[in-house]
């Protein structure tokens, strides 16, 4: 697992209080990990802070799963 994946997973686990095993590539924040819409906003804020990047609102909307987040951050 890459460094980015580790760091993203840590944020997701901490923020949503879910077991690490549940945070898989295709795990949807809302459908599988129990996030509400405000949680997804906060996750994006946390990613921005952790990786020192800007994630615009329209891009943020495309980040639905753990895999989406990792892919976006790696390309940022």
């Amino acid at each position, binding site marked *: 697992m890459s460094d980015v994946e580790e760091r993203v997973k840590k944020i997701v686990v901490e923020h949503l209080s879910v077991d690490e095993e549940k945070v898989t590539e295709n795990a949807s924040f809302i459908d599988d990990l129990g996030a509400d819409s*405000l949680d997804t*906003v*906060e996750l994006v*804020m946390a990613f921005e802070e952790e990786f020192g990047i800007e994630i615009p609102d329209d891009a943020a909307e495309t980040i639905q799963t753990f895999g989406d987040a990792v892919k976006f951050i790696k390309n940022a």
Partner: protein
Amino acid sequence: MFDLTGKAALVTGASGGIGGQIARALHDAGATVGLSGTRTEPLEALASELGDRVHVLPCNLSDPTAVAVLPKQAVEAMGSVDVLVNNAGITRDNIFMRMSDDEWQSVIDVNLTATFKLCRGVLRGMMKARWGRIVNISSVVGAVGNPGQGNYAAAKAGMVGMSKSLAYEVATRGITVNAVAPGFIETAMTDKLTDDQKSGILGQIPAGRMGTPEEIAAAVLYLSSPEAAYVTGTTLHVNGGMAML
């Protein structure tokens, strides 16, 4: 009670009678205050009166760019915005049939749209802090209407619906959103009324007098305080009983 030590509060319309008193009350409770308003002179005068823990942040709320940067300027100056008081407001009174598009729009822009944008602008910091207080100053007119103030009443009623919706969204994050609805308050605006107008108004107020800016400020201080953590989405009417809502 009502200790705001270590909190930073942004107050719009702080150059006016009610806004200035709100800033004083929050400052007296220990908060660092950001004084915003269009007229710099009264803001500077209030700042020198209050002494330390004060920042002057002039902003014309009819300028969308200025509205967008105000929350950032406030964070730069104070480190955070823990309390936002949207007090600024304008009137462009006219009877409905004569009201121009511009009279309508300018009141909606400053009183309602700027309030929305400032709320949105401070949310990020409050969400992270898991603490925030937003107090929007509405008006009794927003609840009961007033001839000649269709635009103003619409904006002030709009603030209430907006506050409730936002209150729903952020309640789990320790952020409360409430409104204070003043009735007739002694300010420069009401000083201009004739004696006849005044006695007409007083006849509608069970308390038999106008309210004071201090009485509005006290309501804002309460809703801004840690003690009011369980009060959200409400409108606190401060009107001497003229509308018991």
